């Protein structure tokens, strides 16, 4: 049992990189949705990636754990295949998930964090997100099968059929309200709202955490400076969400669940919403302890945990470690590798428009394509930076302390 818990503790650190390295994430869905076996192109990419993880894992320890998790998930999903969307499978997945969660409550360290009153809704959120993601993808899978067979999604078969609001809708609404009222009353009677001692500006708690829905943003602070993580990126999240209907010109998939007709939109949104937003909130809530150090789910939140400060800048890595030179004094020379990387990254859109994404460029038009590509690259900058930090201890790619510009 202890071995098992230790394994999960270590694995959870690796799983962060795992989830983030998942451009594969979209593939997982895609691939179980359509085929479910290793025959497809997606399946081949999976195997190749798995081998790369294992080989790299020999040199970089977390990658080895990653490879294990990867193979387990791959094996599970490929065995399930389209059966993943059966109601029976869904039920068992949920039961196992809940069982794992509740059995974990017997672990005192897990209990201490997960049973905090303010964390209870977040525990519930994990399951709600799981359930609703599964429902949405199941419905998409069923519709896609119909579409592929030349039919129409079932929502469309019902468009002509209209029901009276009284009684059908009004009663549904009333039942929902009654149910919710009961849930709220039971919840409120059963669980007291937290109240700590009176505010004391001279004694700060450790860890000091923002309200739970901002913990994803607080987690971003680990990887980016506050002006980026706390101001610019949240601003861009809002702008990006608002821009979605104007960037996405795909006329298909309006008003019904589908995956094959909207692969890119769904892939990007699911990644952003489930991994970059929700998963980081869960990480920030359950896995970040004193001094914002990382703790596995069964680890004791030791305020004196020693974490070696091994993060280094790209400039130091290249100049000192690889080239064996002292750091140049002038920052443009010192940071030139990082600057080339960042400028190269942000000037990808024109290259993509000319090359592999020409199809999209022509379909969307220049303004839509460039705005969309910019927002996407900014979004992907977070997982890229996170993986570089978790796997290679990279602190900054560009570190110009002189000009207040660190990325």
């Amino acid at each position, binding site marked *: 049992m202890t071995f098992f818990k230790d394994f999960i503790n270590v694995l959870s650190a690796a799983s962060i990189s795992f989830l983030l390295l998942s451009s594969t994430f979209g593939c997982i869905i895609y691939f179980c949705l359509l085929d479910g076996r290793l025959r497809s192109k997606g399946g081949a990419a999976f195997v190749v990636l798995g081998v790369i993880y294992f080989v790299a894992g020999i040199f970089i320890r977390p990658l080895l754990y990653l490879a294990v998790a990867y193979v387990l998930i791959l094996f599970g999903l490929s065995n399930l295949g389209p059966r993943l969307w059966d109601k029976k499978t869904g039920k068992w997945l949920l039961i196992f998930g809940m069982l794992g969660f509740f059995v974990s409550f017997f672990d005192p360290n897990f209990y201490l964090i997960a049973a905090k009153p303010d964390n209870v*809704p977040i525990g519930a959120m994990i399951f*709600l*997100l799981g359930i*609703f993601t599964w429902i949405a993808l199941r*419905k998409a899978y069923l519709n896609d099968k119909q579409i592929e067979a030349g039919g129409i*999604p079932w*929502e*469309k078969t*019902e*468009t002509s*059929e*209209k*029901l*009276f*609001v*009284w*009684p059908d*809708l*009004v009663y*549904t*609404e009333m039942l*929902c309200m009654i149910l*919710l009222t009961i849930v*709220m*009353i039971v*919840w*409120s*009677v059963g669980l*007291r*709202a937290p*109240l*700590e001692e009176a*505010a*004391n*500006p001279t*004694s700060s708690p450790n860890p*000091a955490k923002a*309200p*739970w829905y*901002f913990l994803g*943003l*607080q987690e971003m602070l680990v990887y980016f400076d*506050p*002006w980026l993580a706390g*101001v*610019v990126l949240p601003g861009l999240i*809002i702008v990006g969400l608002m821009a*979605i*209907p*104007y960037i996405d010109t795909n006329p298909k*998939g*309006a*008003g*019904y669940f*589908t995956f094959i007709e909207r692969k890119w*939109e769904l892939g990007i*949104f699911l990644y952003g*919403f489930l991994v970059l937003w929700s998963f980081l909130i869960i990480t920030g809530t359950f896995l970040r302890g004193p001094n914002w150090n990382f703790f596995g789910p069964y680890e004791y939140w030791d305020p004196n945990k020693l974490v070696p400060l091994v993060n280094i800048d790209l400039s130091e890595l290249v100049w000192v470690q690889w080239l064996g030179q002292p750091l140049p004094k002038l920052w443009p020379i010192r940071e030139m590798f990082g600057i080339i990387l960042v400028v190269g990254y942000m000037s990808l859109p024109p290259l993509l428009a000319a090359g592999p994404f020409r199809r999209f460029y022509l379909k969307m038009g220049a303004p839509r394509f460039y705005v969309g590509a910019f927002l996407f690259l900014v979004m992907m900058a977070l997982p890229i930076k996170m993986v570089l930090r978790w796997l290679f201890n990279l602190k900054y790619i560009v570190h110009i302390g002189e000009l*207040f*510009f660190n990325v």
Partner: protein
Amino acid sequence: MASVRGIQEGIVNSQIWKSVFRVGIPNTNRKRVLAVLGSLILHLHPVKVRRSGVRMSYTWCMGGTSFFLFLVETVTGLLLMFYYRPTIEYAFTDIMDLREQAPFGIMREMHRWGAHAMVIAVWLHMFRVFMTGSYKPPREFNWNVGVILLVLTLLLSFTGYLLPWDQLAIWAITVGSSMARATPGAGNEGPMSGLIKLGDIRLIHAGDDARFGLIGGRSIGAATLLRFYVLHCVAIPLVAGFLMAIHFWRVRKDGGISGPL
């Protein structure tokens, strides 16, 4: 049974009932239409909806849940306002009082859990709307109103977080609001703020930057509490209520509860 039916008919046919609801039991299609059209609250709905609009597995009922939780928050919040004074001397002790002395004291619990639930419900609502592609034309504008409502929901929860004035509250808001310090050009630790100068004097400093404007001081204090209280109880709910009206109205105008157009 017959007598129950008799009593029901007596009530429904009485002058009082008729004066309020205008239609009797909606047992004919004509009366069903009138029941919806003749009521201020129900006429938010169309008379008829697509079948998919009634299916829980399709709509997840999360928009309605968000709205219902907003109403729960309004009612419980109002009751909490009877007991609560937003000053440093009283805020915490009032909450203690409420906890220990007020009979049937689950209002604070319901308000807090309702707030958490509302944030989650709004997210799931957005999730469903995205997954069914219900932001596509002609619904683009309503998606945008929805995004602003999502931000307002988070702000409502954020401003409310401070009000109990315990350790949890002030440190969460300290962490959350310290970000404003780093606003480019407007926070005293943000990039480019140092460039805004009059001679040698920095114009952006801890006493006038974005964070100062947000919390009304150099640190979380009495001014912050009052400010957040007013934002939480008056300003944001008003704006949110206004936008909700637009949101619901546009749902109708843009083709009804989402479904294929």
